[in-house]
């Protein structure tokens, strides 16, 4: 595989997960600011929507794994198509959180956060405890992602900017 593409797909897989977690954190931290401009409001909604799409990946991955186990070809195909809407996110989630049990735990946590996000997007006010708990979870997850990927990310960057011979 061309080394540049190899490095870029690596960067894509790592950052798509880290940045989507940041989307959630940014949205949850910013939505209640009293002086937001309409553009800022729109940006918050955009980021939260991106975060929701990301959360859906955990659910789709779970459904996809089941479909594969059950050899449900039709479902496998349609779920795969859905996952490949953003191949970076799928590769990122599935490779950073390799174990299905861990992914399931995260999925469950993210589903709770998604409810908080949904209520913000429908212009309701979630409880501050729920927002705080969501933020703590997302920050811990982002830290985990950073810890698990920082070496790979550095290696990919070195490949792009030229200090690693590639064969």
């Amino acid at each position, binding site marked *: *595989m061309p080394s540049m593409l190899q490095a870029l797909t690596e960067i894509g897989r790592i950052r798509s997960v880290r940045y989507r977690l940041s989307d959630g954190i940014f949205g949850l931290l910013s939505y209640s600011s009293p002086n*937001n401009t309409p553009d800022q409001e729109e940006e918050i909604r955009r980021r939260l929507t991106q975060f929701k799409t990301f959360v859906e990946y955990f659910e789709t991955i779970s459904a996809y794994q089941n479909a594969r186990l059950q050899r449900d070809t039709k479902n496998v195909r349609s779920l795969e198509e859905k996952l490949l809407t953003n191949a970076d996110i799928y590769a990122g989630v599935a490779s950073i959180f390799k174990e299905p049990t861990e992914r399931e735990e995260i999925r469950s946590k993210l589903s709770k956060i998604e409810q908080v996000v949904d209520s913000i997007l429908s212009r309701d006010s979630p409880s501050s405890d729920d927002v705080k708990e969501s933020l703590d979870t997302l920050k811990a997850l982002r830290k985990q992602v950073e810890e698990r990927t920082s070496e790979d990310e550095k290696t990919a960057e070195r490949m792009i900017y*030229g200090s690693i011979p590639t064969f």
Partner: protein
Amino acid sequence: MARSIELEKDKVRTELKPFDQFLKELESDAFKADYFDRFRKIVETITKAFKDSIERRLAAFTSGPPIQETSIELDDLKSMIGAVYNLLYITIFKNMTGVPREIYYFTDTFLENCSLSVNYVLCLGEQIQVTDFRWFLLSHQFDLKYPEFWNSVKDQRFYFMQFRKLADRSRSLDWPLLIHEMAHIVDMNKGIVSQTIADTDYYKAYQVLRHKDLYSEEQYDSAKKVSRLGEYVADYLATRYLAGAFVWRFLQEYLTIARIFEEPKTHPDLDNRVEEMIEVIKSELHLPEVSAMIEKEFLVWLKDAGKTRATSHQREFSELHQIFDNARKGILLAATKEEIIGALRSKLHGSLGAKLENDFSGVLIALQNDFFNGRPFVAPPAVGFLIFMYRGGKTNGKNDTEEAISAAAKSLGVPRVKYEELMQELLADCIKLNAVYERYSKIS
């Protein structure tokens, strides 16, 4: 608090300053060549897009969140801008100066023959590869993280091709390998594979191929197919353009280490590739002299690899027929025997010209002898390579071209290696002369 955010935002703005310095550097006399000019255009576009969008992006950050969190966000933004700068300045610009101008003449002529005008540059790198700049931006999440910038540059087509070992005038015989890479650009721009296969996002295909265990066999095979079809198309275009010079150099120089460069998951089996190219030379270019030579080289390689040639070649993908049809429409002139004779006829006005119809082989041998005696030949690259490589296949351990080169070196009293380097420099000059001649012809 607000003051701290402004400080953080200023740091992001500062990250844009090196782009101005970069543009100033590009304006210096040392970088006046047209390929720096096309590179300058992309740097200008990127710089303008950043400057036009940065305030809108920064305005998206409210004063609500704690400064530590905003700082993380702004650091991400800063690192994305820095990544673009590093790619353009370090990976590309700092590696552009070592590329001989003649290679641009070669690659430009190929793109012209494919009626394609795209912005691309050549630069030194450890591996032969071509990259779409948009892959870089997408992998760094510009579309989702900095949409104002992405929206203003997403339609920019800019490619950079990297290579190192071939970046020398004395390695011009291997330059056909670069045409294969350029052919990937043609495929991506003309949608040669995508006219037949619906989902041909090469970046996505590579992401799938890197994570086999994550996908069904069907999906993995589909990504492999997309990637391999892209390789077949690049082989096909390079062969149509250069009448076998690509497969010849591929067999000569790279076959033995091909698996180091090219993984089976992304690249087709070499036997299949060579068979396809031999078929094109035979049935589309009508150059049995060349296909016979390639077949000889191929058999030598097969023997060395402990393999035997399949009695009949089984095409790997049925779609190739349609895809090659698409590719054929994308290239103006192919190096058919008829075209080569036509090109030679327009140049040869003596006894050699008169012999062309009846003794094509004799004319090529005479031109080769002239060439090996240091006489340049202004003709399309396919003709130049054909003259150099003619009679190159080994027969009973004997290679007429090798012998001709050795004899010429001996008569000039030059070591053979040195002599061959000189001949390759002469070939590079011929490529340049032809490109200049073509441009002159168009103007006049």
